[in-house]
């Protein structure tokens, strides 16, 4: 007998689990069956760990029977393959880590285990989180559940597609330039990138360390608040992690937005953007006014320089972070007569084209004679972008923008020109450069039925305000589910 329990949200599943109406084993079984039914078409998962998932579900059921289990106890999740999971292969969608089995758990994985969550498997992504479409995976692209000919966005495309296709109840991702918010928008679900330093990155395979953040994909804003509460907090093993304790984000979900000032940056309505996207965002702003919020026009004048600054800073940091893949201690090795040849050949065979391109660009930007002109210049422009937001938040409580200028594009459409691919992140990248929290959620559909994403940006550690505003909008907007 097939069950449609996989359709549940975290809140709904938790209510039924804690009342004993369903078991985590039934819920986990329903998700595993759903994966078996649809993932050959979606390809959201790189690995499914059925036996371990069912064992975790049984442990969760024992805790649930004992009473007062955490909200995530027994909830089946998808985990982006960038998180180190003890004893579970972790590839970062790269040939160079194809057979890597971490001997330890990332801090966020430890926290989810402690909360009793169930891990269904590891989800697909752009190799080393470098990409906007999940087409850069060494193991083949993921497809958008709303239209299998289109990309799910990237880099956390597998996690986003898995949630949208109801293959898991929620999922874990990372966001360096938009890698949670872009796929959440393209797949019509909720994704939040917290403030830089809000969530520990210990055990998360590093891409660009001054930008990377961890966050959840969920079906509702309330679920995002539940997940973030479980993930956020102090971690002595990550020296960049904030010492502030994390609040219970669900308490912020009052439904009340009266007198909230929502800033609307004029630079985020660019020439050439898809008209349906602008219409949907304007309609969402009108809904907020009906709910009693105020919308004010603001300016973020350095927006158009964000992508150029990002592609120097992120690649420079990546070139340093990825120096560790040398074929010596772990990962792919191509044997050679001497150690330099061993490094060179292992890295050529192990890295895909986009990863090589970014390592090369970053190495160039840091190399003698170019550091000031490129890397330092980009860090100064980063200051200007950060100040734009600081000044804007003197006039508003949060900022609302489109998440992307257009809805999901077709597989293969942008792979020939790296610059065209980078354009996809034009509205998300500034938020990483400034270290701010950003929430993406569905707010409409284009003429083809593809989801349109609203982005809500908060001041530093302003997760509660964007979750509150997102939840209030969700009460007046009903998202669609894809037909699969």
């Amino acid at each position, binding site marked *: 007998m097939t069950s449609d329990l996989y359709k549940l949200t975290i809140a709904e599943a938790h209510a039924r689990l804690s009342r004993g109406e369903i078991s985590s084993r039934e819920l986990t079984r329903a998700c595993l069956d759903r994966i078996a039914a649809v993932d050959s078409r979606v390809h959201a998962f790189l690995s499914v760990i059925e036996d371990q998932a069912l064992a975790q579900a049984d442990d969760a059921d024992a805790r649930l029977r004992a009473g007062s289990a955490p909200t995530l106890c027994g909830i089946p999740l998808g985990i982006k393959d960038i998180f180190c999971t003890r004893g579970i292969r972790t590839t970062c969608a790269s040939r160079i880590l194809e057979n890597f089995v971490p001997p330890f758990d990332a801090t966020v994985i430890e926290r989810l285990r402690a909360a009793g969550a169930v891990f269904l498997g590891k989800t697909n992504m752009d190799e080393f989180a470098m990409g906007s479409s999940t087409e850069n995976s060494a193991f083949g692209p993921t497809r958008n559940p709303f239209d299998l000919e289109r990309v799910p966005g990237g880099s956390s495309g597998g996690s986003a597609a898995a949630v949208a296709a109801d293959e898991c109840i929620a999922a874990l991702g990372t966001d360096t330039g938009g890698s949670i918010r872009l796929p959440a928008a393209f797949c019509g679900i909720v994704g939040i990138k917290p403030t830089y330093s809000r969530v520990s990155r210990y055990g998360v395979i590093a891409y660009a360390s001054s930008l990377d953040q961890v966050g959840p994909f969920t079906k509702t804003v309330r679920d995002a608040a539940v997940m973030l509460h479980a993930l956020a907090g102090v971690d002595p093993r990550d020296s960049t992690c904030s010492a502030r304790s994390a609040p219970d984000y669900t308490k912020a979900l009052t439904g009340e937005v009266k007198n909230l000032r929502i800033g609307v940056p004029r630079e985020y*309505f660019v020439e050439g953007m898809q008209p349906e996207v602008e219409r949907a965002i304007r309609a969402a702003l009108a809904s907020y006014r009906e709910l009693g919020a105020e*919308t004010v*026009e603001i300016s973020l004048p350095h927006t158009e320089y964000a992508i150029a600054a990002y592609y120097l800073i992120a690649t420079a940091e990546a070139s340093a972070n990825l120096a560790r893949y040398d074929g010596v201690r772990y990962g792919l090795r191509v044997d050679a007569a001497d150690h330099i040849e061993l490094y060179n050949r292992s890295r050529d065979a192990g890295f895909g084209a986009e990863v090589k391109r970014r390592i090369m660009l970053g190495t160039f930007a840091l190399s003698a004679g170019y550091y000031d002109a490129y890397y330092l210049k980009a860090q100064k*422009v980063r200051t*200007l972008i950060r100040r734009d937001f600081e000044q804007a938040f003197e006039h508003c409580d949060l900022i609302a923008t489109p998440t992307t200028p257009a809805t999901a594009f077709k597989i293969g459409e942008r792979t020939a020109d790296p610059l065209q691919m980078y354009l996809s992140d034009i509205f998300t990248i500034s938020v990483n450069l400034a270290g701010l929290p950003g929430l993406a959620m569905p707010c409409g559909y284009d003429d083809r039925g593809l989801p349109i994403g609203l982005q809500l940006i908060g001041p530093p550690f302003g997760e509660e305000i964007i979750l509150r505003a997102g939840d209030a909008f969700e009460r007046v907007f009903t998202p669609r589910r894809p037909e699969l």
Partner: protein
Amino acid sequence: MKESENGTVARTGNERRWKPDFAPAACYDSGSMSQKRISREQVLHVAELARIELTEAEQRQLETDLSNILGYIEKLNQLDTSAVEPTFQVGDPGTPWRDDVVTNHPDPDAMLQNAPAREGRLFKVPKIIE
């Protein structure tokens, strides 16, 4: 400036809508060698620094791609940043302290389980010193 009731932003008329300048013709001309901002020699030098062996086809592709990307990045020079301090770090990083105690007990077998080649409790590599 407030948004009007019907949801459209009141405009003064002289505001410009910037157009993301990604159209290939707008930011570079990939057909012209005079537009090359990075030479084959530079590609090979950077590849040596990055310890990546590149095939002839990869070298050619990277010469074009990096030139195009660097051409786009030149737009940063439109901004005068002579009086601006760089931002290397954002967020709320402190300097966390912890007790000086061992938390990860030595387990060579666990640490060596992913080694591409090992001998006993050691990583095996090609001979470095003659």
